[in-house]
């Protein structure tokens, strides 16, 4: 049995220890906000937070996060009002939207550690999240806008 604190709730799951965290979230717990992209930890669509840090859930075995704190896009805020989510709406960031929960989770972890990142720092931090629609310019704008918001 593996126990995690998921979106501030303590839960336990009875799965194989090597099952990727992403599969536990989507298939066992039916939290579909986190997406399956490449499945090999290269695209960032599956980004969630482990103790506040952005990690890729598709290649993280559930046993590696046992007894730790996981946050998914569903738990980023109670009413979709995290400043990153607000900025994303304001700047109409998504196009097809598939990668965007991963993008927002990465952006939120960046701002949690660095309240006002430079352009360069945004690019460096977000390099692991790929968007095939090419919404990068709006992502960058939205991150700066979120950084400027009162939290």
């Amino acid at each position, binding site marked *: 049995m593996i126990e995690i604190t998921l979106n501030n709730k303590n839960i336990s799951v009875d799965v194989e220890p090597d099952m990727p965290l992403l599969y536990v979230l989507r298939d066992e717990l039916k939290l579909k906000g986190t997406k399956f992209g490449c499945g090999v930890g290269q695209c960032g669509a599956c980004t969630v937070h482990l103790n506040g840090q952005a990690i890729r859930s598709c*290649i993280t*075995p559930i046993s*590696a996060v046992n007894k730790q704190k996981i946050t998914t896009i569903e738990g980023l805020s109670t009413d979709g009002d995290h400043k990153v989510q607000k900025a994303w709406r304001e700047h109409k960031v998504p196009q097809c939207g598939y990668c965007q929960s991963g993008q927002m989770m990465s952006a939120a972890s960046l701002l949690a550690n660095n309240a006002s990142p430079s352009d360069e720092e945004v690019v460096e*931090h977000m390099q692991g999240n790929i968007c095939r629609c090419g919404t990068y310019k709006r992502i960058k704008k939205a991150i700066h806008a979120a950084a400027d918001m009162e939290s």
Partner: protein
Amino acid sequence: MSVNILILAAGASNRFKGCKQLATIQGKTMLEHTITRLSSLNKKIYVALGANKDSIMPHLNTSITTIACANWQLGMGHTIAQACEKINLEKSAILIALADQVLIPTSHYLALLQAQITYPNKIIVTTAGDKVMAPAIFPTQYVEQLKGLTGDKGAQKIIKNNLAQCHFVPCQKAQYDIDTQEDYQYLSNKIKNEMEPV
């Protein structure tokens, strides 16, 4: 502080008598196993290549940045120094990992990263028993020392000179690396039971 990842895979694997980086375990090369585990961290990954560079390159995903270390023959110190010159580490820490510590689980790399966030100014070092070893995370203030490394000596020297500034994260599985064909056979068998498949 952000973190960049550097995987050292430049050696000629003389004692291995073959290209160690491309030796497969469970159908995946050792280097791929290491990359997969480190990819969990969502940080930029650099791979330092030297010997066998041209045969290794086609095996790497395009999201991996390779660094050709012309001085690899002079030893691991030179490889680290040269790689650190090519990565922008002005404001960022560097996690140095080896391609042949194949038993290290994802959870250990995640624990190192977690420790780095808690102790951003410390060197985060792996221990097994009473030994200090890679993987380790060096904050930006140690980059100049990394750039000064030479010869066969890796970053161990910096760790040993700054023990009071280190935070240690134990991982018994880090002690197993692959130097020889015997190591390879031994660990291949061990891995069938111990390594987490991804």
